[in-house]
C-alpha cells in the first residue's frame, strides 16, 4: 500500500504530459490554438521529469500524434483506475476481506439471499427475522440494483469457473466501480471541456476522499455504485443534448434506470435534468436537440423508473417528480409555439403570443414553481427543520457541513473549483449550463447535509480539473520550441515564470495526492466491526469483540431467539449472528424503536414488562468503559431517551436523566433515574469490582470513556442474567429470564373435596385469569 501516494504523484506527472500537450487541440474554444505538432513537443518537458512516458512522444508523435494521444490517455485512465482501486484496499490489507459497518451487512445478507434463492425469491422476500414481531417486506423496500449487480458478477464468475465467494464480490465491488466512475467522469468532462481536463478529472475522482469515504473495499453500499450511474447518466445526457439523437437518449434512460434501481438519490437526476432544460429555455437556447432529448428521456425514463418495485407509482404521485412533468409540459408548449411561429404572420403570432403564452406559461410556471417549492426544495431546504425529529437528528450524517469537512474531503479542489465554474460560465454553451447548475445545486445540498457531500464530489473534481487544465494549458507548453514562427507582437510570459508556475501547481497536486492517501488511510478505512488499537511502541492490538459476541450468539442460542439491541446493531446481529432482531438500521417504524428505547431507559421491572410483551430472549448492549471506546450505548443513551420520550412522554422524561445542574453524569452525582435504568445497570453490572488499569491509581469501577467512577456499583438483577461478556467487555449480552414459578403458598391450602372441583373451577373465572390458573393448579396438585 505504500506505493499508493507515489502512484498518485506519478500520475500527476503523467498527466502533466498529457495536459501540456493537448490542452488546446481537442476543443477550439480557447485562445491558445496550438496545432498538433506544437502540442507534441510539449510532451517532452514533463516526459523528462516523469520518465519514460514522454520520450516516445518525441520520436513517434511527430508522425502520428493521434495514436500516441489515445495510447497515453488510455494508460492514464488505466493508471487512475488502478490507483483508485488500490487506495481503497487499506482495510482489506490491514484487517481482512470483511464487510464494514452497518448497512453493508444488510446489503450483504440480501445479496446472499439473492444468490442462494434466486431473483424472484429475492423480490418476494419477507424477512421475518427483522422487526419482530412485524417482519419486513425486503423485496419491495430496497433498491435492488446493488444486490443484483453483485449477484450478477458472482453468477458470471461462477459460470467461468472462477469460484469466488459472494462476500469477496461484495467487498471488492465498490473499488471496481470507482474505476468505472473515473472513466465516466473522464467522458463527461471531455464533453464539457477537453480531453486534458477529462484526464485530470478522472485522476481527481479516483483518489478524492469525498468519494472514497463511501467506496472503500468492504463498504458494500448503494452509494458505491450509484455515483458511477450518476456520472454515466449525466454523460449520456450531455451527449444527447449535444447530438439530439435518440440513440444517446435511450442510453441515458437505461443508465437512469440503473441509477433508480441503485439509489434513492436518483431524485437528484430527475430534478437536475429538467432544471437544465428549463434554464436553457430561459436563456433562449431552445433547439430541436433539446426537445428530442428531453421528451424521450422523460417518457422512457418515467416508464423505466416505475419498474422498480420500491419506486412504483411515486414518479407520477410525489412532488419530487412533479418538476420534471411540469418542464415536460412547458417544453411541449414552447415547441408548439415555435411551430406556430413558422405558420402564422407576425401580427397574428404576436397576439397569440401575448394571450396564450402569458396564460399557459404563467400557469405552468406557477404550478412548477409551486410544486417544486412545496415539494422538493422545501423538503431538502428544510432537511434541517426535521432535526426536531430525534430519530433523524440522531444520525450523524444528517448534520450540516462545516468548512472543515469540505476541506477534509476535497482539499485543494474546494478552493479551485469556483475558478472552473468561472471559466465554464464565461465560455458558456448548452452543456456548460448543465455543469454550472449541477455545481450550484450540489454545493447547496452538501452544505445542508454532510452525507450529500458525495453528490458534490464529482462536480468539484470536474470543475477543478477544468481550472487546473486551463492553467497547465497556458503554462506548460514550451513556446520557444514551437515550429511555427513566433507571431509578431505575441510575446510569451517567458520560460522562467512559466516553469515556476508549473512547478508550484504540480506541487499543489502532489500535496493533494498525499492528503488523499493520508485521509483514506486514517479516516475512512476502518471496518468498525473490528477495532484496532496501537501501543506506544507501534504494535497493534486487534479488538475483535463484536464478531466474538455475534458468533457466540450464533452458536449458543436457540435458532429463533429474539435479540433486543439498539437499532444501530440490528443489521449486524441479523447478518453475523443470524438471529431475530426487534429493530434495525432501516428505522421505518419509529414507535417500535421508541418502545425499545423505553425499555432501555426504564427501570428493570418496567423494562421487563416491555420485554415480555415483545418476547425478548436476549439483550445485547455495547459498552466501551473498559477500553475507552466512545461510540458505546451509554454515549448514545440520551438519543434513546429522546426517541422514547417522543412516543411516551408520560413515562420517560429527558430531564430525569440529568443532574439538577443539567449534566449527564454516570458517577455518584448522576440522577437516580439514570443510575437505576436498565441500560445503566446492564452496562455497569459487575463493573464496580473491576480495576480497569492494573497498577494505575484509578479506583475500581472507573469508566475510561467518560472518565468517571461509576455511581452505582451494587447492581443486582431480578429478571435478567448475564449471558456473555466479550473479552474487552465491548459487547455484553443478557438473558431475559422466563417468568418465575409462582411461589408456594405459605398457608395451608384449602382441602378441596372432589365434588367441589367444578365450582372451584367456575368461581375463579369471575375473579380473573391469574387467580383461576392458580386455583386450577392447586386443585390439580391435590386431586
Amino acid at each position, binding site marked *: 500500500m505504500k506505493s499508493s501516494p507515489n502512484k498518485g504523484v506519478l500520475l500527476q506527472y503523467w498527466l502533466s504530459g498529457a495536459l501540456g500537450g493537448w490542452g488546446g487541440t481537442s476543443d477550439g474554444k*480557447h*485562445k*491558445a490554438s496550438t496545432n498538433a505538432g506544437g502540442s507534441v513537443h510539449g510532451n517532452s518537458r514533463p516526459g523528462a521529469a516523469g520518465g519514460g512516458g514522454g520520450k516516445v512522444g518525441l520520436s513517434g508523435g511527430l508522425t502520428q500524434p493521434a495514436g500516441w494521444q489515445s495510447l497515453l490517455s488510455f494508460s492514464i485512465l488505466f493508471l487512475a483506475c488502478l490507483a483508485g482501486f488500490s487506495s481503497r484496499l487499506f482495510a482489506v490489507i490491514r484487517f481482512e476481506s470483511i464487510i464494514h459497518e452497518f448497512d453493508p451487512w444488510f446489503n450483504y445478507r440480501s445479496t446472499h439471499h439473492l444468490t442462494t434463492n434466486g431473483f424472484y425469491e429475492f423480490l418476494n422476500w419477507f424477512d421475518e427475522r427483522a422487526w419482530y414481531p412485524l417482519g419486513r417486506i425486503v423485496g419491495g423496500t430496497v433498491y435492488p440494483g446493488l444486490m443484483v449487480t453483485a449477484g450478477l458478477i458472482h453468477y458470471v464468475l461462477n459460470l467461468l469457473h472462477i469460484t469466488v465467494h459472494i462476500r469477496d464480490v461484495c467487498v471488492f465491488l465498490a473499488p471496481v466501480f470507482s474505476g468505472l466512475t473515473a472513466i465516466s467522469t473522464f467522458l463527461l468532462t471531455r464533453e464539457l471541456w477537453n480531453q486534458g481536463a477529462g484526464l485530470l478529472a478522472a485522476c481527481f475522482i479516483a483518489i478524492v476522499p469525498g468519494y472514497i469515504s463511501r467506496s472503500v473495499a468492504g463498504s458494500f453500499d448503494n452509494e458505491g455504485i450509484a455515483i458511477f450511474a450518476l456520472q454515466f447518466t449525466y454523460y449520456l445526457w450531455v451527449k444527447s443534448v449535444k447530438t439530439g439523437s435518440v440513440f444517446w437518449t435511450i442510453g441515458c434512460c437505461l443508465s437512469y434506470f440503473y441509477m433508480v434501481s441503485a439509489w434513492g438519490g436518483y431524485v437528484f437526476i430527475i430534478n437536475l435534468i429538467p432544471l437544465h432544460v428549463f434554464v436553457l429555455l430561459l436563456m433562449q437556447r431552445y433547439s430541436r436537440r433539446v426537445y428530442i432529448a428531453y421528451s424521450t428521456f422523460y417518457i422512457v425514463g418515467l416508464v423505466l423508473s416505475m419498474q422498480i418495485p420500491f419506486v412504483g407509482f411515486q414518479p407520477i404521485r410525489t412532488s419530487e417528480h412533479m418538476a420534471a412533468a411540469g418542464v415536460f409540459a412547458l417544453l411541449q408548449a414552447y415547441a408548439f409555439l415555435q411551430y406556430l411561429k413558422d405558420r402564422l404572420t407576425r401580427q397574428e403570432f404576436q397576439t397569440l403570443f401575448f394571450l396564450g403564452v402569458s396564460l399557459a406559461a404563467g400557469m405552468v410556471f406557477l404550478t412548477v414553481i409551486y410544486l417544486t417549492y412545496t415539494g422538493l426544495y422545501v423538503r431538502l431546504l428544510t432537511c*434541517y427543520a426535521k*432535526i426536531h425529529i430525534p430519530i433523524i437528528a440522531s444520525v450523524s450524517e444528517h448534520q*450540516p*457541513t*462545516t*468548512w*472543515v469537512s*469540505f*476541506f*477534509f474531503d476535497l482539499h*485543494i479542489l*474546494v*478552493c*479551485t*473549483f*469556483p*475558478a472552473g*465554474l*468561472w*471559466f465554464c*460560465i*464565461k465560455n*458558456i454553451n448548452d452543456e456548460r449550463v448543465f455543469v*454550472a447548475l449541477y*455545481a*450550484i445545486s450540489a*454545493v*447547496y445540498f*452538501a*452544505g*445542508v447535509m454532510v452525507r450529500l457531500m458525495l453528490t458534490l464530489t464529482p462536480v468539484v473534481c470536474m470543475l477543478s480539473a477544468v*481550472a487546473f487544465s*486551463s*492553467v497547465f494549458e*497556458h*503554462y506548460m507548453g514550451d513556446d520557444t520550441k514551437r515550429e511555427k514562427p513566433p507571431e509578431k507582437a505575441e*510575446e510569451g*510570459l*517567458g520560460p522562467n*515564470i512559466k516553469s*515556476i*508556475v508549473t512547478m*508550484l501547481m504540480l506541487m*499543489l497536486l502532489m*500535496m493533494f495526492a*498525499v*492528503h488523499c492517501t*493520508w485521509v483514506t488511510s486514517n479516516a475512512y478505512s476502518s471496518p468498525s466491526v473490528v477495532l484496532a488499537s496501537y501501543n506506544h511502541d507501534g504494535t497493534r492490538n486487534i479488538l475483535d469483540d463484536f464478531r466474538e459476541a455475534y458468533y457466540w450468539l450464533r452458536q449458543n442460542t436457540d435458532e429463533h431467539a429474539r435479540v433486543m439491541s439498539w437499532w444501530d446493531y440490528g443489521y449486524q446481529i441479523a447478518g453475523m449472528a443470524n438471529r431475530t432482531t426487534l429493530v434495525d438500521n432501516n428505522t421505518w417504524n419509529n414507535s417500535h424503536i421508541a418502545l425499545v428505547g423505553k425499555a432501555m431507559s426504564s427501570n428493570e421491572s418496567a423494562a421487563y414488562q416491555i420485554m415480555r410483551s415483545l418476547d425478548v430472549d436476549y439483550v445485547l448492549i455495547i459498552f466501551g468503559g473498559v477500553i475507552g471506546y466512545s461510540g458505546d450505548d451509554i454515549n448514545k443513551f440520551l438519543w434513546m431517551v429522546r426517541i422514547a420520550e417522543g412516543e411516551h412522554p408520560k413515562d420517560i422524561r429527558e*430531564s430525569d436523566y*440529568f443532574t*439538577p*445542574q*443539567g449534566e449527564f453524569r454516570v458517577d455518584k452525582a448522576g440522577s437516580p433515574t439514570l443510575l437505576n435504568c436498565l441500560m445503566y445497570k446492564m452496562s455497569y453490572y459487575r463493573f464496580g469490582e473491576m480495576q480497569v488499569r492494573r497498577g494505575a491509581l484509578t479506583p475500581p469501577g472507573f469508566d475510561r470513556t467518560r472518565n468517571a467512577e461509576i455511581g452505582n456499583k451494587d447492581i443486582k438483577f431480578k429478571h435478567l442474567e448475564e449471558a456473555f461478556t466479550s473479552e474487552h467487555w465491548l459487547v455484553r449480552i443478557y438473558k431475559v429470564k422466563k417468568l418465575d414459578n409462582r411461589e408456594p403458598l405459605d398457608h395451608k391450602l384449602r382441602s378441596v373435596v372432589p365434588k367441589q372441583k367444578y365450582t372451584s373451577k367456575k368461581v375463579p373465572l369471575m375473579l380473573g385469569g391469574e387467580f383461576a390458573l392458580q386455583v386450577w393448579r392447586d386443585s390439580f396438585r391435590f386431586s
Partner: protein
Amino acid sequence: MFGKLSISLFVLIIFYHDLSDAQKKKETLLSEKVTQMMEWASKRSVIRMNGDKFRRFVKAPPRNYSVLIMFTALQPQRQCGVCRQADEEFQVLANSWRYSSAFTNKVFFASVDFDEGSDVFQMLNMNSAPTFLHFPSKGKPRKSDTYELQVRGFAAEQLARWVADRTDVQIRIIRPPNYAGPLLLGFLLAAIGGLAYLRRHNLEFLFNKSVWAFSALCFVLIMTSGQMWNHIRGPPYAHKNPSTGQVSYIHGSSQAQFVAETHIVLLFNAAVTMGMVLLCEAATSDMDIGKRKIMCVAGIGLVMLFFSWLLSIFRAKYHGYPYSFLMS
C-alpha cells in the same frame, strides 16, 4: 319534639347564613381580584408586579387562577443578557396565550423585576435571575413548580410544555413572523426591478456573463465556507476568553466553527480562486507584457499564500494532521 326540631333548624339556618356570608365575601374578593387581573392582562400580556401586588394577588389565599411569574432583572445597570433573551421568549409565550382563542382567566403571566420588588426576592429566598415559578391555583408550589432553566433552556416552546405540564393549559406558540427576511428580499427585488427599469432600453446586463458568473461564485463560496452550518447552528461570532480577554476567531475543534472563522475561510477560498483566474487571464489577455507578468506573479502568489494559510488553519483545527506548506 317539634320545638327541638325547630330550634335545631333555626340554629342551622343561622349558621348557614353566617357561612354563606363569609363565602360571599370571599367570592366578591375573588371576583374583584380576577377582574383586576383580567384588566391588567388585557393591557399587557405579562403583568408587571411589585411587592404589594405580588402579596395581594399571588400570595394571598382566595385565588382560583394559576400565575406564572418570571423573576428577572431587566434594568440596564444589572447587565443581565440572559434575562433579556428569556424575557423575549416569555413575552412570546404570554402573547401566544393572550391572543389565543382558548384564553381564559385560569392562567396569568406576570413578571417581577428585582429593582421593583426586591422584597419579593427576599421573601422567596431567591438569588438568581431569571427564574420561572408557577403558583398553582390550589395548594403550595412544589419542587416541580420551579422551572429547570439550566436543563430545559428558555425557549418559548419548552416553557409552553412546562406550563401544559403544570396547569393543563395547552399553549400553541405563535411567534410573530420575522419581517426582516421578506423585507430584505422585497428590497432586493425592488432594487433589481428599479435597475431594470432605469436601463430598460438596454437589457444587455442580463446577458452579461460576468455578472452571472460572479453571483454563482458568491453562492458557491458561501456554501463551501460553511455558512449553512452557521445558519442552522447559530454559533457565536468569536469567542472571548473571560479571564484573559483574548479573542479567538478560530474554534479549536474540527466539529464546530465560529462565524468569524467562516468569513476568513470564505475570503481565503475566494483569494485562491482569484489567483487561478488571474493566472489564466495573464496568459490569454491582450495587455502589454509587463502587466501580464505582474498578473501572473500576483496570481500564483495568491494561490500559494492563501492555500498554505488555509492549510495551516485546517491543521490547527484538525489535530494530528501531518502536512503543511510554507506556514506551519
